[in-house]
C-alpha cells in the first residue's frame, strides 16, 4: 500500500527550501504551467505529476497543517523547510508509478476497463438492463465501438477475462485486489475508494494512490506486450503526453521559424515575461533545445560554477553571486540545461 504521507514527505523533502508549499499541490494535480513542469524535472518529481487530479486544496492544506503540527516541516514566508524529523519509505516507488508518462491516459483507461467489465459481465449473464457506472459519454462510445468490432460477444467475454486475469497476475496481490474490488459486474457493484479505505483501515488517499500505481503498472505491461493484450491496449488513449503546454508549443514553433522573442511577443500579444516562461519550459522539456542564442557559453559557465558552489536552486541566491547584467531568464535556462546533463550523467554511469 502506498501511503500518502510517504509521497508528500518525499516531495517536500525534494523541494525543501526551494519552492513554496503549494508547488507539491500543483504537481499532484498535474498543473500544466511552465513552472510546475520545470519543477518536476528540476527536482526529480516526475513520478508524482498529475497522480491526484481531483485533489482539493482544502484536503492538501489539511495534510500540510498536520505536517506542521507534527513538526515535520516549518513554513517560512515564501517557502518551507523540512526538519530532521521528516521521513518516508518510498522503496521502489519509482518503478511503480509514473505520473509524468501516464497522467493523460491513466484514468480514462481505468474507466474504460471498468465499463467494459460491467458491459461484458452483463452480456454474459444475459442482462440487458443496467446503468453504466461510468457516465463519460466519450468512454461509453469507445466501449460501444469495441462491441461492434467483436461480433461474437461470447468470445469477447472470454478474451477479456483472460487478458484481465493474466495482466493482474503480474502486479502485486494487494494491488490486484484493490483494483478488482472497484470493478462492477452483473451481480455486483464495485466499491468506492472510501469503502475500500474503511475495509482496509487506511486513508482514502492511500487507496487512491495505490490504485494509480496499479493502473500505471498495468498500462506499462499492456503497452509493452500489445499482442498479448489487444483489448486492454485498445483503451490506452493515443493522445500521449505532450510534454509542453499548448501555449509554449506555439512559441516553440515561432522560434523554429526564426522569429525573435520580441516578434513573437507582438504576434501573440503576450507579455515578455510569458514568452520567457515558454522558452524556459521548452528548454526544460526538450533536451535538444539549444539555449546558445539566449546565453553565451561564457555566461553559461559562470552560472554553472555558481550553481555548483551554492548547491541550491533558488534563483535569488544564485543571482546574488553573479554580475548584475546576467538575468534571471538566463539563470533559469542554464538551470534547465544543467539538470538535463546531470540526469544523463547519472544514466550513463
Amino acid at each position, binding site marked *: 500500500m502506498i501511503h500518502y504521507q510517504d509521497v508528500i514527505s518525499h516531495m517536500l523533502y525534494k523541494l525543501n527550501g526551494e519552492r513554496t508549499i503549494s508547488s507539491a499541490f500543483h504537481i499532484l494535480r498535474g498543473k500544466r504551467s511552465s513552472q510546475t513542469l520545470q519543477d518536476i524535472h528540476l527536482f526529480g518529481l516526475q513520478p508524482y505529476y498529475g497522480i491526484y487530479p*481531483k485533489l482539493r486544496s482544502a484536503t492538501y492544506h489539511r495534510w500540510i497543517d498536520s505536517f506542521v503540527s507534527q513538526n515535520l516541516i516549518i513554513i517560512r514566508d515564501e517557502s518551507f523547510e523540512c526538519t530532521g524529523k521528516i521521513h518516508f519509505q518510498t522503496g521502489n516507488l519509482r518503478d511503480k508509478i509514473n505520473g509524468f508518462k501516464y497522467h493523460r491516459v491513466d484514468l480514462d483507461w481505468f474507466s474504460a476497463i471498468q465499463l467494459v*467489465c460491467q458491459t*461484458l*459481465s452483463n452480456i*454474459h449473464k444475459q442482462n*440487458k*438492463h*443496467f*446503468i*453504466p*457506472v461510468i*457516465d463519460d459519454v466519450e468512454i461509453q462510445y469507445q466501449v460501444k465501438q469495441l462491441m461492434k468490432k467483436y461480433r461474437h460477444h461470447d468470445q469477447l*467475454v*472470454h478474451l*477479456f*477475462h483472460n487478458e*484481465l*486475469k493474466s495482466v*493482474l497476475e503480474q502486479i502485486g496481490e494487494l494491488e*490486484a*485486489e484493490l*483494483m*478488482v*474490488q472497484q*470493478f*462492477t*459486474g*452483473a*451481480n*455486483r*457493484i*464495485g*466499491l*468506492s*475508494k*472510501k*469503502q475500500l479505505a*474503511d475495509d482496509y483501515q487506511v486513508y482514502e488517499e492511500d487507496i487512491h494512490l495505490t490504485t494509480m500505481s496499479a493502473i500505471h503498472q498495468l498500462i506499462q505491461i499492456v503497452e509493452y506486450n500489445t499482442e498479448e493484450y489487444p483489448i486492454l491496449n485498445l483503451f490506452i488513449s493515443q493522445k500521449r503526453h505532450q510534454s509542453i503546454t499548448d501555449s509554449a508549443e506555439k512559441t516553440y514553433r515561432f522560434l523554429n521559424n526564426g522569429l525573435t522573442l520580441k516578434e513573437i511577443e507582438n504576434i501573440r500579444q503576450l507579455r515578455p515575461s510569458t514568452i520567457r516562461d515558454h522558452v524556459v519550459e521548452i528548454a526544460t522539456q526538450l533536451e535538444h533545445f539549444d539555449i546558445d542564442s539566449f546565453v553565451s557559453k561564457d555566461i553559461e559557465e559562470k552560472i554553472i560554477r555558481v550553481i555548483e558552489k551554492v548547491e541550491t536552486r533558488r534563483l535569488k541566491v544564485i543571482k546574488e553571486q553573479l554580475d548584475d547584467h546576467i538575468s534571471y531568464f538566463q539563470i533559469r535556462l542554464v538551470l534547465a540545461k544543467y539538470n538535463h546533463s546531470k540526469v544523463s550523467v547519472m544514466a550513463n554511469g
Partner: protein
Amino acid sequence: MDKETIKLEDQLKKHFGFSSFREGQKEIIESVLDNQHTLATLPTGSGKSICYQLPSLIVEGITIVVSPLISLMVDQVKLLRAQGYKRVTALNSLLSYEQKSKLLSHLNRYRMIYCSPEMLQQESFINRLKQLNVLQFVIDEAHCISQWGHEFRPDYLRLKDVIETLGEPTVLALSATATPKIQDDIVKQLSLNMRKIIYPMDRVNITYSVLKSDNQIEKQEQIIHLLEQAKAPTMIYFSSRVMTEQLYGLLQQQFPERKVAYYHGGMEQQDRLLIQQQFMHDQLDIICCTSAFGMGVNKDNIRLIIHYHLPTNLESFIQETGRAGRDGKQSVSVLLYTKGDETIPFQIIESELPDDSEIERYLHAKQEGINIDIESELSETKLRFLNYHTHKLTQTLTQQSEIEEELKSFRDHRKQLKINSVINLVRWVNAEDCRRALLFQPYQEHVRPALFDCCDHCGFNIHKWEIDLNIHHDYKQNWRNILEEMFQ
C-alpha cells in the same frame, strides 16, 4: 374491454414489462391521449412517471418533462436508457456550453426531453423547441408552481408563457403533495382549462411512528435498538453531512455484519453513483443520507425510513417517507425527536433566504452592472429568489428603494410561511391523534384506513415490531474469484 384498452395494456407490457396498471394510471394516460390538459395526483411511489412515459412512446412528437431536481431527472434518463429507450435526454445547468449546443442541434433525435424550469428560460432552447413538434408538456412535482407549496420555485410560474409559446401542447401536471388549495393554484397559474384527476395521496402501506428522547445519546441508543429489531433495507435521513458520516461510523462499529454506507451531496459524482447502485442491488442494508439521496431512488423493498433530524416541513416528510414500500408491502416510518430539534430546520430556513445585507448588495451590484461577484457568493436558492422577484419588480417599479422594500417584504413573507411549516411539523410530532389522519387530512377529505398497522397512536408499538429479511452477503474476497463470478 374495447380495442383501445387492450392496446394500452399491451404497450405497458411491451415497454415496461408490467402486466397491469396501478390505480389511476390508466385514467390519467387516457386523458392525456385524449389531448386534455390534466392535473393529476397520486401517492408517492405509485408510478406517476409511467403516466407520461407511456403516452410519449405512443404519440408522435416530443414530450417535455419539467423536473425541479437535476439528480432526479438524470436518474430517470439513465433508467430509461438502461431499459433500452435511447431517445431520451436531459438538459440542465450541469452541461457545459459545448455539450449544450451539441445537444440542441441534435434535439430532433429525441422524443422525451427532461429539463429544469430555468432551462426553459433560455432563448436558444425555446427557439429550438419551437421548430420541433412538442405535443406533450409534463410538469412533474407540480406543487412547485404554487406559493403555498413547500418547494415553491419561481421559475415554475413562467411555465405558463412557455406553454403558450410552444403552441399549447397537452399539459400534464403531477404531484403527490398537492392540497386542494394548491391544486386550484396550479390551474390558476397555468390559466388552462384542466381536467382534474385527484386520487388520494395517502400511503396505506406505511406505518407512522415517532420516538421521543431526552438527548442525542438516548436518540442514538434508540436507533441502535431499532436496527437490531429490523433487519431489512433501511434509509436514515439527516440534515447535515457531518452527522450523516458520524452516525455511519457508529453504525458500522455497532453492526459489523451488516453493510452500512453513507451518501450526501458533498461526495464525488462517481462515489454517489456507486453507493446508489449498491443500494439498488441489495448490496447495502442501511444507508445514512441527506435529502440529496432519495428523490431519484426507486428501490421497491425499502422497509424502514428513519428520520434522525426533523425535515423542514410535512411535505418533505411525506416525500422522504414515500421512498418506503414501493412494492406495496408493509413499511415503517420512524421519526426520532428530541426537544429542541426544531432549531436545525429553523437554521436551514434562515440560510435559504437572503438577509437584508445580501439583498442590498445584490441590488447594488445589479445597478453597477457587476453581478459576477455577488452571484458566486450567494447560494443557488437565494439567487433564484432574488433573480426572479427583482426581474418581476423592475417591470412595475423604478425606484431602487421601493424594489428593496418589496424584496424584503417578499422575503419575510416566504420566511414566515416556512417557519409555520416547521411549527406544523412539530405540532404533528406532539399530537395525540392518529398520525396518518393528521398527515393526509390537508390533502383529501377522507383518509383511507391503513392496510397494515396504522400508527403509534392507533396501537402500533415500534418496540414490538420485528422484521428479518434474512439478508446475507456472500462476497468473494479474492480478486480471482470475483472475476470468475463475473464471467463464468
